[in-house]
C-alpha cells in the first residue's frame, strides 16, 4: 500500500507567527486545472495586523548594527540553500520551468540574499558623504530607513521576484508587509518558513497571500505605512494607488512597464535607496 503524503496548510506570516486569515477565507491554487493547495486570502484586517507587527519590529531592527543585519540576512541565504531542492520543485511547478531553469532561478534567489547582505554596511559608504559647506561646520549626509514599507511582489517570478522586492527593503532597517504573487504564492509562504528559522526578528518581514486588488488599496491608504513598492502591478495603471499613497505622502516605487527578468544581479542599490531617507547632520566647529 502506497503511503499517503501529508499536505501542508499554507498560511500567512505576521509578526513571526503563521496565522490563517482572520477572515477565514482561502482561495484555490491550481496548476493545469489540478488542485494544488488552498492559500489564505488575507483581508483588510490582516493588512492592519501585519502593519502593526511591522511597526513594532522596525525600530529595533533599524537600531541593530549594520554588521548584525548583514549577518542575519546572510543567514537567510544559508537557510535557503539548505532547502534548495524544495524550492526548485516549487518554482518549477508554479512557474512551469524545467529543472535546469528552476535551479538557476533558485540559485539566483539564494545569491540575491548574499548580495543584499553585503549592502547593509556599505550603502551608507556609497550613498552618504561629508558635505564641504562654506562655513565652520561639520556636515554629513547618510541614508536611514524610512520605516514600514508595503510591497506588492511580482506576479510571475514567485520566489526570486519576491526576494528582489523584499530583501532591499529590509537592508537598511525597514520592515515590510509584502503581498505575494496572487496565483503563485506558495514559494513566498515557504520562504516565510525559511525566514522564521533564520534570525530575522519577528515582524520585520510579514507576508500576505490573497487578491492583490483587494489588498493593495488597503496598504496604499494605510496611514502608518511609509512607502509602497508597486512592482506587482507591472504594466498596469496604478494611478488610484498612487493617489491613495499621497494621503500620508508615502514614498512610491512605481511599477515597471513589464516584469523584469530577474536572474541577473540588480544594476545597483536603487531599490535600497528607494526606501531610504537622507539625513543631514550639521555641527559647528570651533574652540
Amino acid at each position, binding site marked *: 500500500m502506497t503511503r499517503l503524503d501529508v499536505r501542508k496548510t499554507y498560511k500567512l506570516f505576521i509578526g513571526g507567527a503563521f496565522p490563517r486569515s482572520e477572515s477565514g477565507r482561502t482561495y484555490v491554487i491550481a496548476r493545469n486545472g489540478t488542485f494544488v493547495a488552498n492559500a489564505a486570502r488575507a483581508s483588510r484586517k490582516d493588512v492592519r495586523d501585519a502593519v502593526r507587527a511591522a511597526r513594532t519590529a522596525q525600530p529595533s531592527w533599524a537600531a541593530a548594527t*549594520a*554588521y548584525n543585519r548583514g549577518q542575519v540576512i546572510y543567514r537567510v541565504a544559508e537557510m535557503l540553500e539548505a532547502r534548495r531542492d524544495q524550492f526548485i520543485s516549487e518554482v518549477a511547478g508554479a512557474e512551469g520551468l524545467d529543472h535546469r531553469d528552476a535551479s538557476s532561478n533558485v540559485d539566483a534567489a539564494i545569491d540575491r540574499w548574499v*548580495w543584499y547582505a553585503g549592502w547593509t*554596511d*556599505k550603502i551608507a559608504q556609497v550613498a552618504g558623504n561629508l558635505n564641504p559647506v562654506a562655513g565652520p561646520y561639520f556636515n554629513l549626509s547618510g541614508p536611514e530607513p524610512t520605516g514600514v514599507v508595503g510591497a506588492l511582489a511580482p506576479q510571475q517570478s514567485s520566489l526570486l521576484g519576491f526576494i528582489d522586492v523584499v530583501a532591499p527593503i529590509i537592508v537598511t532597517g525597514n520592515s515590510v508587509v509584502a503581498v505575494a504573487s496572487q496565483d503563485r504564492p506558495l514559494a513566498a509562504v515557504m520562504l516565510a518558513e525559511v525566514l522564521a528559522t533564520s534570525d530575522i526578528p519577528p515582524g520585520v518581514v510579514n507576508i500576505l497571500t490573497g487578491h492583490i486588488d483587494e489588498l493593495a488599496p488597503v496598504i496604499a491608504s494605510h496611514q502608518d505605512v511609509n512607502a509602497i513598492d508597486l512592482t506587482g502591478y507591472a504594466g498596469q495603471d496604478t494611478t488610484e494607488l498612487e493617489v491613495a499613497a499621497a494621503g500620508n505622502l508615502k514614498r512610491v516605487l512605481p511599477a515597471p512597464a513589464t516584469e523584469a527578468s530577474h536572474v541577473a544581479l540588480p544594476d545597483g542599490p536603487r531599490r535600497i535607496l528607494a526606501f531610504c531617507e537622507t539625513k543631514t547632520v550639521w*555641527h559647528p*566647529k570651533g*574652540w
Partner: protein
Amino acid sequence: MDSEKATRPSGHGPQPEATVPDMITPTWDYAPAPEARDVIDLGRDWRMFIGGDFVEAAAGDRFPSVNPATEEVLAEVPLATEVDVDRAVAAATSALPTWQATPGHERGKYLYRIARLLQERAREFAVLETLDNGKPIRETRDVDIPLAAAHFFYHAGWADKLDWAGMGPSPRPIGVAGQIIPWNFPLLMLSWKIAPALACGNTVVIKPAETTPLTALLFAEVCQQADLPAGVVNIVTGAGQTGSAIVDHPGVDKIAFTGSTAVGKGIQRAVAGSGKRVTLELGGKAANIIFDDAAIDQAVEGIVDGIFFNQGHVCCAGSRLLIQENVHDLVVDKLTTRLATLKVGDPLDKNTDLGAINSAVQLERIRSLTDTGETEGADRWELDCELPERGFWFRPTVFTNVAVNARIAREEIFGPVLSVMTFRTPQEAIAKANNTPYGLSAGIWTEKGSRILKVADQLRAGVVWANTFNRFDPTSPFGGYKESGFGREGGRHGLSAYLQPSQSAHPEQPERSAAPEAQA
C-alpha cells in the same frame, strides 16, 4: 629589573573626592579563571601553505615560536628562503587569472565562508593567539578574532560591488600582493591584508611575523576548509630575510606592509623604480589630548585603553598624554588610582588585563627606552605588582614631567609606557600633538562637540578618536599621515589599495600573462 616601589607623581592639585572608608564590604581577590588550552593541538605538524599544499621549506630549516608568557617553545615552523618565496609567488601568479575572472559574487562567497569558519573556530584561534602572542585571552576572544571574522564578512560583501568602490566601472585587481604583517595583532592584521586583496581579485603571498606565525598557519586550514582555490592564499613563515625576498620578488605587483617606520622606508626604497604599488602602515606616537572640560573618569578609561590595551603593542596607541594644565594633577591622580587595579599576568586567565611582552627583543627595547626617561628627567610611576618568574614582562609605567624633546616623548616605545605632558590652550595642544614625524592617530577628550571637530581638523593624523580610543571596525578606514605610512585599510577607501581602473590609458601595471613568470 626596576626595583623601585611605585611612587605617586609629585604635585598635589585638587584632591579627588574623599573616599569613605568601607568597613562592611570586604574586598576579594580574583580567583584564577584560566581558559582551557586543550582546544588547540600544538603537536600538529606546522607547515607553510603554498599552492594549496602544506609544505616544508625547501632547505628544510625550521625556527621555534615561543610563548612569551612562559618562554615555552610552542612549535617549530618552516623558515622560508628565497626559493620558497619564489614558489609561493609562482603559485599566486598561476592562480591569479582564474581568481580574477571568478565573478565577484562567487569570490565573495568564499570570503563569507572564511568569515563563518573563523566565527565557528573562534575559541581555538583565540587560545592559540594568546599562547603565541602573550596578549590576554579576553582580548583575543573579544577583539582580535571577532574583528578578523568581521573583516572577512565586510569585504565579502564588496567582492560583487566593486563598481561602487569609487574607481569607476569594472575596476581590476592589481595582481599578486606580497603582504608582511607584524606580531601585535597576528590574525587581525592577516585579515586586514587578505580580505580586501581577495575581494578585489588579487592573489596573495603573506608572511606573518617570526614571533607569531601560528594563527596564520591555522588560518591556512580555514582556507582549505573553505575550498579556496589553490594558490589564491599562500603563507610563508620566516623573518626579515623572508620578507625581503617577497619585497624584492619581480613577480609581486603590490606590497602591503605593517610594521616599523624604519622597515617601511626600506621597502619604499627597495621597490623604487619597479612599478610595484605599495601601502605602508607604520609606527605612531599618538597624542591623547585631555581638555579640562572632559568627563575625567571616562577620559581615564580612555587613557588606559589607549596605552595599556594589548600591552601598548599598538601602532596607534595613545602613548603621549597631553593634559590641560589645570586638570593635570587630577587626571594623573585618578589615572594612577585606576591603574592600580590592573591585573598583569597569565594571559590565559580571563581576568587578566595585561599579558606578556611579545619577545625578549621587544622587552629590551622597552627597558632601554624607559631608562632614558629617567635619565632625561621625567618622573616614573609604575604599577606595584608581582610578575611571573618566567616570560617577558613589563609593569605598566607612567612618566610625568616629560620634556617634549625627551626620547620617551618622541620615539615609539611600543609597550605599556605612557608619557604625560601638559598644555594650556587648544593651539598649544595641537602644536604639541603634531610635533612628531608620525601621524597615525590621535585622541580628543572634551564635552564640547565644536572643539572636537575644530581640533580634529587640525590634527595631522589618519584616525582621530573623540571621547573614545582604539576603536576599530572593518568599515572604517585606518592608516597614517606623514611617516606613519600611506594607504588605508578598511572601509571603501581601503579597496583602492588593491584595485586599479578598468580602462587606463597608462596602465599602472603591464597586463599579466597567464603563465607563471619571473622565476628568480
